[in-house]
């Protein structure tokens, strides 16, 4: 697998992982605005979609896309963070048709919406369920740094360091800061890639 496919994307980090220990070859954190772009590049590389999963962490909903390759195997985990107060990620179902059902499932279980999805109706849950079973209760959410290993970092932005920084005492202010930092990082990365 050529590891240059992610150049020019709004990356938070790219890490090479140990397949024996994690089952992953690469772990990629991405700014949400470049998700569709990344999916297109992976499609052009010949990858297929394995699944989409969500982890409800204190930092937000970590949406994880697993991709693999039929002829040169090596699992890629693409991760996007969606804040709890606005859980929205753009759909990739126009590139990988199979994402359609996976995204509907994620919406059933976590309430994460996928903007631009052609049919965002319940798939596994009843139409009148009115709740999302896999949401964690407030106070039971763990920070991502508690269960994600950074791996062998190839590329990273300051935002990546913020994920692994020690916990700040006040939960509310910490998350506000992070949102602000994220917005700033998005802006700078976007402008640099255009230039």
């Amino acid at each position: 697998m050529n590891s240059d496919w992610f150049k020019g994307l709004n990356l938070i980090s790219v890490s090479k992982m140990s397949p024996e220990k994690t089952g992953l070859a690469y772990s990629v954190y991405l700014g949400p605005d470049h998700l569709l772009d990344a999916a297109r590049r992976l499609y052009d590389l010949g990858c297929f979609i394995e699944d989409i999963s969500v982890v409800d962490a204190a930092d937000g909903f970590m949406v994880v896309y697993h991709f693999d390759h039929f002829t040169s195997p090596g699992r890629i985990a693409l991760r996007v963070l969606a804040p709890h107060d606005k859980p929205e990620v753009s759909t990739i179902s126009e590139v990988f048709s199979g994402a359609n059902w996976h995204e509907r499932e994620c919406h059933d279980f976590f309430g994460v919406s996928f903007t631009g999805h052609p049919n965002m109706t319940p798939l596994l849950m009843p139409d009148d369920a009115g709740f999302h079973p896999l949401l964690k209760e407030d106070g039971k959410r763990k920070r991502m740094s508690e269960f994600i290993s950074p791996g062998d970092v190839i590329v990273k932005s300051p935002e990546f360091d913020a994920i692994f920084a020690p916990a700040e005492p006040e939960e509310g202010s910490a998350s506000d800061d992070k949102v602000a930092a994220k917005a700033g990082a998005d802006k700078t990365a976007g402008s640099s890639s255009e230039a």
Partner: protein
Amino acid sequence: MLHTEREYSKLIAGDFYTHHMEPGPDDRTMILNMGPQHPSTHGVLRIVIEIDGEYILRAEPVLGYLHRMQEKMGELKTYLQYMPNMGRVDYLHALAWNWAYVGAVERLGGIEVPERAQYVRVITTELNRISSHLLWWGAFLLDLGAFTPILYAFDDREKILDLLQIPTGSRLTLCYFRPGGVVNDLTKDFIDGLREFIPHMRSRLPMYKGLVTDNIILRKRVEGVGIITEETCRRYGATGPVVRGSGLAYDVRRAEPYSVYDKFDFEIPTDKECDAMGRYNVRVAEIEQSLRIIEQALDAMPDGPHMVKGAPKVKWKAPAGESYFAVEGARGKIGVHVVSDGSNTPYRVKLRAPGFCNMSLFAEVARGVLIADAVAILGSLDLVIPELDR
């Protein structure tokens, strides 16, 4: 205000009947429900189809009738207490799910598995795969109107279940693996029985071929039906016999070798036709390949413990981290993604069911086919509904 009779009938039928599927622009088409009690949907799959005469214009599978929230149960039970769920996700190839989950837990905890246990796992999982393929074979032909084959298939499958009952203690929802090994060692009864079963199963395969595979009635029903290209498989993430029936030799046992599979000599059957017959041929050929693997494993199986010393107990705490483990199930790539926060219950368990991904391409493939062909396509995907709905 209701202008036409059509709008009026839609109001009576309600959305439950059409399930978000808007009727087409004119009266030439009809919306029909296949399932949830249709015999060819094997359980409780429902497909809403819009038909023009005998032809399907649109199909929309409606899932969830067997949804049990397996992933939530994973978060509520400890690592070992969750094991019995695995045999209930896909009851036909229960041991592959057993393996995917213990594999993810072992990877997370860095648990070594003794050499003998690896071989025991290979032997029992391959045996389970044959039983799964046999049941599919019988049920697929039953869908197509052939009643006799399922009786032969059950006869052979019964012998496998009798064998698997010896080490596992159960016949269907097997729960045999544990992180660090397997529950019981293989006994002499089992090994002797298996040595007898292998030539028996081989002797049946030519009969299956003569009776069914070469049968013109079957071929007319499945040849050229349900074309799934490699590109479609890639977009939907279809794996297992579906992608191999599209000419691509993708098998997790080769692509991402786990356990001792790299020590065995076996072929990956493929078929270039991309149709239902191709998928049929792949599964039938896989029975022989599984027998080959079992033979080699029986010969090479070393002595030793079947469970590692200090294997996790019920309240075992996994180290914090995440792991993904994939195995080749009878229906395709089974993946389990476990996230641990360091406590004795997983923080998140994600189950990647191959049937779910294979089924998701049905809406696209069924467009424009005859209803009878849609039944053949559904059968050729080898669906196990609890796995789709989890």
